[in-house]
């Protein structure tokens, strides 16, 4: 890929997430998708930029707000959508839903819905790599709200103490449900937390996909080269409610509008147009391609089948005798 092809690819990845999730919101209204649904709209540059620099055998650990990560990692949108429909063809057999997307083939370790719960897991995956002398990276995503959880601190310390190849990606979208960062942390400069573990840490404009990719590349390279864990604070914003149940009482409409001016897709699109890399026609093609893909995903999900109730107890334990 040339540089510019690559940039267009980043744009398309972000748009894929955006359109996919817009459809999810509709499908939630239509009651095709149920349970909790957490949209990533507004934050697409983060997952897109980070995922870009990872290798196929790197590992990803994400949260309940992980559609973007799954798509950027290359999970089939149809299998993700089928999962959200609760169909057995889904990437978790319809058992996980929106919050629990899994895919062994891309080393996508969920979809973890206990805030902070994925962090120790990432430390362990990285420990396995270190003990096995495999030059892999484990990238773990979590919100700024998770920084208040004890597990975050235990995991940071363990990773730094043992020099483990973890890339900590803190998605600072300023809110944990309705709790603003300044009501959740006495010290809101999150890189100071990393410093207190002697872990290299950078603040990154999470609305700029190229800035994210660049920072992530530098960090991942260092991690892979044995430089120990790194911490990225990715400053972003969610444009939508926390979940489909959230009346958004806690933030001003204005603030949201303000941030929408920094829409990562719109910004990047304009940059590419300004630099002559993209024109309206090419943009139209991308839109069409993504649209079609989302249509196909929905069709696949719709055509999917229900897991037979008889198999409810399958996979509680492995299907081999101990």
């Amino acid at each position, binding site marked *: 890929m040339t540089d510019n092809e690559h940039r267009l690819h980043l744009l398309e990845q972000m748009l894929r997430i955006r359109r996919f999730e817009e459809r999810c919101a509709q499908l939630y209204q239509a009651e095709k998708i*149920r*349970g*909790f649904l957490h949209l990533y709209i507004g934050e697409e540059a983060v997952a897109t930029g980070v995922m870009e620099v990872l290798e196929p055998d790197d590992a990803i650990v994400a949260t309940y707000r992980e559609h973007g990560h799954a798509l950027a990692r290359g999970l089939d949108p149809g299998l993700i959508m089928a999962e959200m429909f*609760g*169909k057995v063809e889904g990437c*978790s057999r*319809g*058992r*996980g*839903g929106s*919050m*629990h997307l899994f895919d062994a083939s891309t080393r996508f370790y969920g979809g*973890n*819905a*206990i*805030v*902070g*719960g994925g962090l120790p897991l990432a430390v362990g995956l990285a420990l396995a790599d270190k003990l096995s002398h495999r030059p892999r990276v484990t990238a773990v995503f979590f919100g700024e*709200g*998770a920084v*208040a*959880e*004890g*597990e975050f601190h235990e995991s940071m310390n363990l990773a730094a103490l043992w020099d483990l190849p973890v890339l900590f990606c803190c998605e600072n979208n300023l809110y*944990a*449900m*309705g*709790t603003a960062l300044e*009501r*959740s*942390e006495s010290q809101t400069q999150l890189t100071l937390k990393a410093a207190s573990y002697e872990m290299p840490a950078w603040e990154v404009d999470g609305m700029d996909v190229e800035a994210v990719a660049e920072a992530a590349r530098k960090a991942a390279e260092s991690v892979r080269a044995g430089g120990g864990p790194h911490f990225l604070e990715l400053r972003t914003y969610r444009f939508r409610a926390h979940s489909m149940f*959230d*009346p958004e*009482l*806690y933030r001003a409409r204005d603030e949201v509008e303000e941030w929408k001016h920094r829409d990562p897709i719109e910004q990047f699109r304009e940059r590419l147009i300004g630099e002559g890399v993209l024109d309206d026609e090419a943009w139209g093609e991308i839109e069409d391609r993504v649209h079609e893909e989302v249509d196909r995903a929905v069709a696949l999900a719709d055509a999917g089948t*229900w*897991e037979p*109730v008889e198999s*409810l*107890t399958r996979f*509680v334990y492995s299907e081999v005798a101990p």
Partner: protein
Amino acid sequence: MSDVIAPPETITYREAIREAMSEAMRRDDRVFLMGEDVGRYGGCYAVSKGMLEEFGPERVRDTPLSESAFVGAGIGAALGGMRPIVEVMTVNFSLLALDQVVNTAAVYQHMSGGQFNVPVVIRMATGAGRQLAAQHSHSLEGWYAHVPGLRVLAPGTIEDARGMLAPALDDPDPVIIFEHVGLYNLQGELPEVDGSVDITTAQIRRVGQDISVVTYGGSLPKAIDAARELDELGISAEVLDLRVLRPLDKEAILRTVSSTHRVVIVDEGWKTGGISAEIAAIIAEEAVWELDAPIERVCTAEVPIPYARHMEQAALPQVPTIVAAARRLVGR
């Protein structure tokens, strides 16, 4: 003056809890509410919506995502003379704070030789049925009910949702209140305004002769529906609502067994080692000769709760499975 009788006002389970909290806070300065998103967000399940406006951010206190610390802080504040209501968003997250409950709240008085009691109330949502999948659908009331030093309540009616809080706050010892997520929208008549209820006994919710259905919390409506269906089949089912999961009202359990001689226990917890087991054990120890049939338990299947609706429903206790169990025991 009007001679039209106003229809009895209705209220939801959610509103009943909110009213109970607001009333307690109006009456007693020592009471405050603390938990994740109880304030500005209005509560994850909107239970505390509007309370921030009335009581301000000191008394309706949003906490960071720090379950262990804020539950522990509630315990500490209780030791310091306050009457905290700590909301843990759901029982699923309460595992992160379990050490504080088990190793501090529950043991403090005994271990200090009676010097320190801990008048904290900890509320949490529990249960499945909303397609929230494996990590958000636990029913772990039985674990809390295992711990000496705690009182464990499970309101299954509007009246209990409204009336259990005041005596819980009056209780000098730690009280855990489980609110089933499936009940928040339950609607019913407004109980008496100062409707404080007893928090020591189980209650018969429906009298019957042929079989006893022993249950609590989110399964109570299912048990009552099942009893209605059984009625149509000519089987008269008594429904015992445990209400208080610790200390259990043993006498009430033994009374209903001695009256119907057949027991189905319905519990949304997993069967193995759940609270249903304790009920069965009590009967096996103290009323085994009263039984005209083996005990049956209708519980959640021994699986992590799946997301897909049909799978989730298949995992949970249901009216038909309760009815079927009862029919097996009665033999028709």
